[in-house]
């Protein structure tokens, strides 16, 4: 009992600490001061009256949403004496693996830099700044020579690293036994099995209505759709984050999705947010970073070639270039097993006073990174709204898809969950694919790393991402990947090579 209480007070203290620095705190303060003018506020019962006022005016709801958001994003402290690294990643061997992976990436980036004799960062001459400002809304028309740039890494490189992950405390012995994993991932993390998944994802059960299925043309809308839309509108009217998160587990109606996501992610576009975005834009204009070329290359290679997303090319530059300048993103490294790469001012290698994070947001884009942003262009029109949503999605979810950690939503756990599900429920298929050299994870890895963006039609993808928001977990990606294999099991049993299996599944999605 006592432990729980002290845990709770610790959590409360932490959240209060966090919120004190936010603009919401300043607004609440202002509102409290302003409320003193109101007749119903009496000196004798000042505290109660102000609380009542907050409740009625909707400010309490806003505070609730902010607290809820903090609870969702920040992991609960496991032990008061735990060092900050434990918050990032409790297992030492995982931390080490992430550390060496980062070293490799940075080395690759630095060598590209030296080879091409391009500085990591430089200030743009005024003429170029003006030019960029003029072209800001149509950067896609630029065709810089990107042939010499290579993406720093691709998902398959990352997969190789994960395959080689080993827990030094876990001695498997050389002989195969029933404990040996037949898949590619060889670390013993705890993943949910189907009964646990069923319990966790109870709203996705067969008896519950879902958008995307129960609103198809054959089903009369009175059975589910109309009521669901009505509830959605009510949730939006109440502006309740927690309710929205619960609601969206059954999918969001197209017309309400943009607002619902903003509510769940607790994004409200205040003037200071717009200003912040403009500030980032200025940073982009003034300084040219090497990663900018990487971003350009990635957009040109992936999103621009996509049948759905080529239209939004310009928005992608506007979001990703600003994202790389955003130092507020550094905050998420407190709970991300990754750490931002450090670089040193020329000539001052090793001197901590001259160390800077590179890129400023600490995130080095890889091949396909722009696909995290592309589907959001369907929802948000204004660049700053699009930007805020993407940033929030990244620091809550997407970062887990390319960093090595033991978190249940981390990519390692997702891979293991996928393989375990397949092995347990489709053992014949798993064995067959393994025999022909087509380990299922080699095919599904890229789907999961990109959260299926570019592999599913946009309307289906958005329904999937609804559930990610609703359950605050990425486990559904692994479940979907396994389900795809189950769906195509009959055809897959007949393929005889990895290439054939890939080919089969391209047309599936």
């Amino acid at each position, binding site marked *: 009992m006592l432990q729980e209480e002290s845990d709770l007070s610790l959590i409360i203290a932490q959240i209060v600490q966090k919120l004190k620095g936010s603009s919401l705190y300043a607004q609440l303060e202002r509102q409290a001061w302003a409320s003193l003018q109101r007749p119903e506020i009496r000196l004798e019962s000042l505290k109660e009256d102000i609380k009542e006022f907050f409740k009625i005016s909707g400010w309490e709801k806003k505070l609730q949403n902010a607290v809820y958001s903090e609870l969702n994003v920040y992991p609960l402290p496991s032990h008061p004496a735990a060092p900050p690294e434990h918050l990032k990643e409790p297992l030492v061997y995982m931390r080490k693996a992430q550390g060496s992976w980062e070293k490799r990436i940075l080395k690759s980036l630095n060598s590209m830099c030296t080879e091409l004799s391009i500085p990591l960062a430089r200030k743009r001459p005024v003429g170029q700044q003006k030019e960029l400002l003029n072209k800001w809304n*149509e950067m*896609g*028309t630029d065709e810089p020579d990107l042939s010499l740039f290579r993406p720093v890494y691709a998902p398959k490189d990352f997969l190789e690293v994960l395959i080689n992950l080993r827990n030094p405390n876990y001695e498997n012995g050389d002989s195969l036994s029933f404990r040996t994993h037949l898949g590619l991932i060889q670390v013993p993390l705890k993943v949910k099995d189907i009964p646990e998944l069923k319990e966790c994802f109870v709203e996705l059960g067969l008896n519950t209505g879902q958008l995307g299925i129960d609103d198809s*043309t054959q089903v009369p809308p009175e059975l589910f759709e109309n009521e669901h839309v009505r509830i959605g509108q009510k949730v939006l009217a109440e502006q309740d984050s927690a309710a929205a998160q619960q609601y969206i587990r059954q999918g969001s109606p*197209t017309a309400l999705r*943009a607002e619902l996501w903003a509510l769940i992610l607790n994004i409200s576009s205040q003037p200071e947010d717009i200003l912040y975005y403009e500030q980032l834009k200025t940073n982009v204009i003034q300084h040219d970073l090497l990663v900018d070329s990487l971003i350009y290359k990635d957009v040109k290679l992936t999103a621009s070639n996509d*049948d759905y997303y080529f239209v939004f090319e310009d928005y992608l530059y506007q979001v990703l270039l600003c994202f790389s300048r955003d130092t507020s993103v550094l905050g998420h490294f407190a709970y991300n097993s990754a750490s931002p790469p450090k670089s040193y001012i020329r000539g001052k290698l090793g001197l901590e006073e001259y160390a800077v994070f590179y890129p400023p947001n600490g995130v080095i884009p890889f091949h396909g990174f722009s696909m995290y942003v592309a589907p959001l262009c*369907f929802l948000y029109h204004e660049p700053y709204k699009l930007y805020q949503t993407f940033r929030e999605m990244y620091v809550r979810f997407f970062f887990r898809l390319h960093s090595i950690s033991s978190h249940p939503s981390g990519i390692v756990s997702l891979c293991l969950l996928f393989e375990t599900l397949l092995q347990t429920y489709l053992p014949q298929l798993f064995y067959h694919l393994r025999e022909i050299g087509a380990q299922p994870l080699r095919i599904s890895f890229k789907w999961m790393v990109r959260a299926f963006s570019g592999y599913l039609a946009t309307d289906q993808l958005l329904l999937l991402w609804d559930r990610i928001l609703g359950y605050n977990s990425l486990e559904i990606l692994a479940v979907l990947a396994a389900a795809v294999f189950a769906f195509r099991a009959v055809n897959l049993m007949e393929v005889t090579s990895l290439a054939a299996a890939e080919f089969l599944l391209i047309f599936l999605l």
Partner: protein
Amino acid sequence: MSRPKNQNYKCHGSSKGKEREQRASIRFKTTLMNTLTDVLRNRPGWVEVKDEGEWDFYWCDVSWLRENFDHTYMDDHVRINHFRNHYELTRKNYMVKNLKRFRRQLEREAGKLEAAKCDFFPKTFEMPCEYHLFVEEFRKHPGITWIMKPVARSQGKGIFLFRRLKDIMDWRKGTAGKKFASLEAQPARAPTATVNPSGTHDTRSSDDQKDELPVENYVAQRYIENPYLIGGRKFDLRVYVLVMSYLPLRAWLYRDGFARFSNTRFTLTSIDDQYVHLTNVAVQKTSPDYHPKKGCKWMLQRFRQYLASKHSPQAVEALFSEIDNIFIKSLQSVQKVIISDKHCFELYGYDILIDQDLKPWLLEVNASPSLTASSQEDYELKTCLLEDTLHVVDMEARLTGKEKRVGGFDLMWNDGPVSREEGAPDLPGMGNFVTNTHLGCVNDRKNQLQQLFRSLQVQKKASS
């Protein structure tokens, strides 16, 4: 079996038997080499005839039609894919005239509100004959942008934008202009093409001019300066409408179509950049930005989904029903002038532009929409479109004629509006009337066709 009427007449098709009799094989002819030939060749029971062979079905091009239609005798069952004087709808200047006349008629008969439903065509003036009227309108709205389009050319050729009269002075110095200058010297008078009492136009009359220079007619049209943009780019919609007859008017609307994007970002500052403003794929293909792999089209379903996530369901419904209105009114306006021949049907490609207020505008109607595929997705769209067109034309005499949906086609107009509800009377006055159009909606044509043909077979067995 052919039966020549005289030396000049070509006959096609067998003369024996009832019109709706099933044929052992259907002989088709076409000059196109693209998706159409694939579809025709793959159709069971259809055989290709070449050169001078007799045919039951001909997908011809308009030049053949112009030269041969009048000398060709066709048996009852024979079908051809154009109406004799389709240009009443597809030539920009004629379409404007017909629409203007229809609008006046509507105003007389049903009042201003009903007539306002015809205001989906930007203000257009024929050049050079309406030049003076144009200048009057031009002076009333200084500073707006106008677009000059040749009447009969396609694929974006010859089109340019202008804002000052000076800009067209330069154009006038070209071939078109010489004729222009001579006209200008004369006082403003009636249009060059003679209009017959029935309202039809005689194409040959444009040759009977005093000057010998071949005149190319142009239209000057008010340019829509606030198009709806997606990703900062301008786009237009290509929609397919199949007309089986004009008297009575029977028209089908295909659920699929596409939005064609301009490759560059929209801005009014550079009206010389035709790549910005013209969205034909043909023009875009020559733009330096063009990457053939990516194409620049969105299927209509994607477009409709995109709109649904940005605007209220009511706004989207309203837009699509205004688009339906464009089809109906434009067809009604030429209903009485097009020579309705039971042998003829026509697949039109409508080009629609949406502006920022979600108002649809008609850019033009194409009698020969491109059937070449620019991508795999495009190939599938056009293949299915053509297959379903042939299903509706029904050379195999399988349909009962009461169907409201065949594959991806929905019966949009059957001498009156068609209701979506099964078996409901098609009375637009009733409160629950929903039109039977599903543009941009799910197209589960394979399932529908399976069910349709299965039930037709059953019906046939029962009745025989």
